[in-house]
């Protein structure tokens, strides 16, 4: 039997013990690296290539035992499964109450939930919370660990955006852009592995939107001036820019900060 396949065989035996598919490949890569490091060290100490591989594999220990321990270290967290169930219950609860026309939630909680604060669109909110619990848990279980955090953030923004657009219909346009922008950021980041390049799309589209808003207002100003003889049209610019900034740039920057904090070691080392 040739040597590399001995390592492959060992790794395969370990793989079979790890039930959670998502965890398998990063773990095996790490083990593989370790065996190669160990083998190289043995070769330096004077062993032949073949003997070094045998020793390195022997040093790792029984693949069944090692795999079993790794399996215990990598299991979907119970809380993820719990939140899925809670999410499904919330979603079903809302669908049920809305179909039957009875407002179960209002009966239970009333309109005023916290200190007399009226929560607008309560059913949608609870529905979205339920949906997001399901989505987040599924992401935590199935999406590769490297990007699961970013995906959860992204999903969070989208769901928040949907709720806000229910409450404030006029914001829908901006929110739609946020979604597109977050996705493009993630795609560019995934490809380039660089937060800076990922943010290029954010900054350019923000600049584009900025020019768009200013342009419409200039148009408005000229139109008002020409047709009505009155001046005006810029009074909405600060408000529009503030909305765009908050809904558009803040989530991206947060996400970028999160990713670059995670990667900061990488840049230093």
């Amino acid at each position: 039997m040739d040597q590399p396949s001995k390592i492959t065989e060992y790794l395969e035996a370990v793989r079979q013990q790890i039930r959670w598919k998502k965890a398998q490949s990063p773990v095996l890569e790490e083990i593989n690296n370790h065996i190669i490091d160990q083998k190289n060290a043995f070769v330096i100490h004077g062993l032949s290539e073949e003997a070094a591989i045998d020793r390195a594999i022997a040093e790792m220990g029984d693949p069944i035992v090692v795999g079993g321990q790794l399996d215990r270290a990598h299991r979907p967290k119970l809380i993820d499964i719990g939140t899925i169930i809670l999410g499904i219950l919330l979603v079903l609860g809302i669908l049920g109450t809305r179909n039957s026309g009875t407002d179960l939630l209002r009966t239970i909680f009333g309109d005023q939930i916290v200190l007399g604060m009226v929560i607008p669109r309560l059913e949608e909110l609870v529905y979205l919370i339920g949906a997001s619990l399901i989505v987040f848990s599924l992401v935590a279980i199935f999406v590769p660990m490297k990007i699961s955090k970013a995906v959860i953030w992204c999903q969070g923004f989208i769901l928040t955006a949907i709720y806000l657009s229910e409450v404030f219909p006029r914001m829908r346009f901006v929110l739609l852009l946020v979604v597109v922008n977050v996705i493009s950021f993630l795609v560019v980041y995934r490809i380039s592995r660089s937060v800076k390049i990922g943010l290029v799309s954010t900054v350019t589209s923000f600049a584009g939107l900025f020019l768009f808003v200013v342009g419409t207002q200039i148009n408005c100003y000229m139109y008002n001036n020409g047709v009505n003889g009155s001046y005006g049209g810029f009074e909405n610019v600060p408000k529009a820019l503030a909305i765009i900034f908050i809904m558009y740039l803040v989530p991206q920057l947060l996400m970028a900060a999160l990713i670059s904090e995670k990667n900061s070691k990488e840049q230093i080392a």
Partner: protein
Amino acid sequence: MTIDKSLLTGSTTMLILKLLDETDMYGYQMIEELSKRSNNAFELKAGTLYPLLHTLERKNMLISYEETADNARVRKYYSITTNGRKHLKEKKEGWKAYTTAIDDVLGGAGFGPA
């Protein structure tokens, strides 16, 4: 002061956290370093190390990141978190209390005459 019962089994955790408290390392490096510093007294098995590292990572005591080493192999480095440092401090205190207690018994009355 009571002694943590998992002290002995948990001492590997303490040693790993201590190594990472100084600098980021990858798995193989930790085993080498531990063996070197303990004059080969601690021969940590890789089969023990990785499950432990992964468990610590899930408990947010460590974070990992990948870095391309020579010949394009990607190495997984581990780095201690604030949470991990806190845990290390607690473990160290527990360990000190334990060894002090042992010393007290061994070095106290009844130890000499045997």
